[in-house]
C-alpha cells in the first residue's frame, strides 16, 4: 500500500518476523487467555527474547535499538493476533521504557530499564486513580519526604493499572506538594516487592482480558529518594510526555485489530453464501468492506506520521502531542468501526466464540478509552489547533 515507501528493509524484516511469530505463537492461544484471563507469561517471555519489550531502547540498556516506526509495525502485528498481548507490550515499551530512558538516571537505566527492555521484568505505569484520570492534578496519592530526607512515604491508591498484578517495577505518580496542584506531582520507580505495596483483585473486563489489570494500594510505602524519576515536581510533565509516546502505541494497536477485523471479513465475504451468492457480491457488504479499508489506510497514515514525528523529536526535543493524539483518536475509532462492521458482516458467527471476531469487537473498545478517551483526544487536538493553554 501507499506507505510502503517509508519502510526500510530492516522494517520489513521486523514486520515479517513479528507476523510469523504472532501467527505461530499468539493466534493459537489467544482465545484461551481471553477465556481464562490468565496473564500470558510464556508468550511475554518469548517476546522479550526477540526484542519486542524494548524496541526503541538502545542495545546498551537491553533493548533492540530500533526506531518508532519499527515499534509501530511490531505493535500492529502483535495486536492483529491479540490486543491483550499488545497492551502488555505497549505498557512495557512506550510507558515504562520510554519514561526511564528519557528521564531516568544512569543507575536507574542500568537497573530498571535493562531488566524491562530485555523482557526479564514487567513494567507498569500507575497514574489513574478512582477519582482522577486525565485530570491528574486531582490525584489523592501522597508522597511525603522523611525527616532525614532519605525516602518518601507514600499512601494512596491507583486504579486500572495494566500488568499491575505481575509488574516487577512500577512508575508511580504521587502528589508531593498538593498546593502546587499539577506542578506538585512527582514520579517514582517502585520495586514490586516494596513493603506497603498491596495489589488489589484483578479487574474482570469486557475485553483485553489477558492483560491483567488491578488496583494498587500504598500503605506507608517507603521509596528511597534515588528512585525519584526526573526531579520532584516534574511528574505531571513526565506523565503527559510519556502519554504522547503511549498514544502512538495505542494507535498502532488499534490499527492492528482493525486490520484483523478487515482480513476476517474479507475471508468471510468470499466464503459465506446467501441467496445463492457469495455475500461479498452484495453491495451492502462491499460498502462496509470499502469503508473499513479506507479508514484503515487513513489511520495508518496518521499513525506512521506520528511515529515519524516522534523520531524527529529525538533530535529536536519537540513535543509531538498533536500527531499522537490525532493518530490515537482516529485509529481507535477506526478499530471500533471495523470490528463492529466485522461482527455485522459475520452475522451470527460474528457473535459466536467459534471465531475471534467477537473478541476483536470487545478488545477494540478499550482503545477509545485508555491513555486518554476519544473526548480527551479531541480536547487535546482542539486546544493545540486553537492555541489554548493546558494539555492532558
Amino acid at each position, binding site marked *: 500500500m501507499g506507505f510502503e515507501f517509508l519502510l526500510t*528493509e530492516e522494517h520489513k524484516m521486523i514486520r515479517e518476523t513479528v507476523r510469523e511469530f504472532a501467527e505461530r505463537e499468539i493466534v493459537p492461544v489467544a482465545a484461551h487467555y481471553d477465556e481464562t484471563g490468565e496473564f500470558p507469561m510464556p508468550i511475554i517471555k518469548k517476546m522479550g527474547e526477540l*526484542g519486542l519489550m524494548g524496541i526503541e531502547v538502545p542495545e546498551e540498556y537491553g533493548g*533492540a535499538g530500533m526506531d518508532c516506526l519499527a515499534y509501530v509495525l511490531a505493535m500492529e502485528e502483535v495486536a492483529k493476533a491479540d490486543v491483550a498481548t499488545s497492551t502488555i507490550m505497549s505498557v512495557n515499551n512506550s510507558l515504562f521504557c520510554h519514561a526511564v530512558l528519557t528521564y531516568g538516571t544512569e543507575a536507574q537505566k542500568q537497573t530498571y530499564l535493562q531488566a524491562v527492555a530485555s523482557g526479564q521484568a514487567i513494567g507498569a505505569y500507575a497514574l489513574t486513580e478512582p477519582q482522577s484520570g486525565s485530570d491528574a492534578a486531582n490525584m489523592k496519592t501522597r508522597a511525603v519526604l522523611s525527616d532525614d530526607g532519605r525516602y518518601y512515604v507514600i499512601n494512596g491508591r491507583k486504579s486500572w493499572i495494566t500488568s499491575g498484578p505481575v509488574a516487577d517495577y512500577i512508575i508511580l505518580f504521587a502528589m508531593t506538594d498538593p498546593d502546587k496542584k499539577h506542578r506538585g506531582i512527582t514520579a517514582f520507580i517502585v520495586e514490586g516487592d516494596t513493603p506497603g505495596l498491596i495489589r488489589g483483585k484483578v479487574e474482570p473486563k469486557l475485553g483485553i482480558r489477558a492483560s491483567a489489570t488491578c488496583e494498587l494500594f500504598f500503605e506507608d510505602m517507603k521509596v528511597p529518594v534515588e528512585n525519584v524519576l526526573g526531579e520532584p515536581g516534574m511528574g505531571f510533565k513526565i506523565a503527559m510526555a510519556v502519554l504522547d509516546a503511549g498514544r502512538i502505541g495505542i494507535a498502532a494497536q488499534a490499527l492492528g485489530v482493525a486490520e484483523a477485523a478487515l482480513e476476517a471479513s474479507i475471508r468471510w465475504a468470499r466464503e459465506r453464501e446467501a441467496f445463492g451468492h457469495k455475500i461479498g457480491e452484495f453491495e451492502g457488504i462491499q460498502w462496509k468492506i470499502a469503508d473499513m479499508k479506507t479508514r484503515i489506510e487513513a489511520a495508518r497514515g496518521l499513525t506512521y506520521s506520528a511515529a515519524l514525528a516522534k523520531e524527529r523529536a529525538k533530535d529536536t526535543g519537540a513535543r509531538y502531542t498533536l500527531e499522537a493524539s490525532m493518530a490515537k483518536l482516529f485509529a481507535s475509532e477506526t478499530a471500533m468501526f471495523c470490528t463492529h462492521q466485522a461482527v455485522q458482516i459475520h452475522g451470527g458467527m460474528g457473535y459466536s466464540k467459534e471465531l475471534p471476531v467477537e473478541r476483536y469487537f470487545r478488545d477494540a473498545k478499550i482503545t477509545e478509552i485508555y491513555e486518554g478517551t476519544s473526548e480527551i483526544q479531541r480536547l487535546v487536538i482542539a486546544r493545540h489547533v486553537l492555541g489554548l493553554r493546558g494539555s492532558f
Partner: protein
Amino acid sequence: MKYVVCLKQTPDTTELPKITPEQALAGNEGATLVLNPWDEYAVEEGIRLKERFGGETVALSMGPESVDQALRSALAMGCDRAVRLWDPSFADSDYWSTALILARGIEKDGGADIIVTGKMSVDGNAAAVAHGIACKLGIPLLTQVARVVDVSDGRITVERLLDEGRETVTAPLPVVISVVKEINEPRYPTFIRIRKASRTPIPVLSAADLNIAPEEVGQAAARVRWTHLVKPEPKKRQVTIIEGDTPEEKARKLLDYLMDVEKVL
C-alpha cells in the same frame, strides 16, 4: 570447523495455489519470495552446529539480487556471513548446473567441513541439489538427517529418518547433509540480529570468480527441462454432518455409517 548452509529463495507457500503453470514455466511467479521453508531447518542446524562444536556458519545461495533477502534472513537467524553467487549466465540453470555453481562457490570460499541443505525446495521439489553438490565435490552425502549425534575426530555421526525407523550412520568429513523438519525448530530472528543482518554486506561471486564457462551452466547446459506443467484440480470433498440430539446418538449413527455405508469397520 566451518559449516556452509546452501539455501534457496522460493515463493511463499501460501501463494503457491495462485501461481499459474505459465508463470511457473516462465520463472516469473509474481509471488512473495521467502527463504525456502525446508532450508529454514538447514539454517537452524548450521547455527546449532556452530553453537555445539564451534566455528563459523556461512549462508550460500545462487541467484539475483532479490536472493539477498533470503540470505539476510539466514544472517538474522545467526549465520556469521553470507555469500551470493550470480552471473547472468547462471539464469535457468538446472539442478546439476546449480550444484556445480554451489560446489564451486564452496571451494572458492575456502571449502567446508559440513555442508547443510534442506530436504528439497518447495517450488522445484526435486531434492537433487544436495546430491549434485556431493558429486561435484566428491564427498559423502547423508540425506534425511533428523539428528546430528556427534562431530568428532574428523567424522560426523547422524540419525537418518527412514520409513522403517531411524538409522545411525557415520561418515568422514567433509560431508554434505540434507536435513528433514524433525531435526529442529528454527528460531525466530531477534531484533538485534535483524539490525545487524540488514547492515552486513553480502559479497557476490561471478562466473569469472568461480571459473565457470557460460556453456557449463544456464539454459544451454540444462540436462533437465520443464516441457509442460499441469496444475492439479483442487480436491473436492463431500462433507456429511451427522445430526443427533445427544453425543451417544451421533456416535451410534456414525458407527452405523462406517459399518454399513463405507464398510470400513
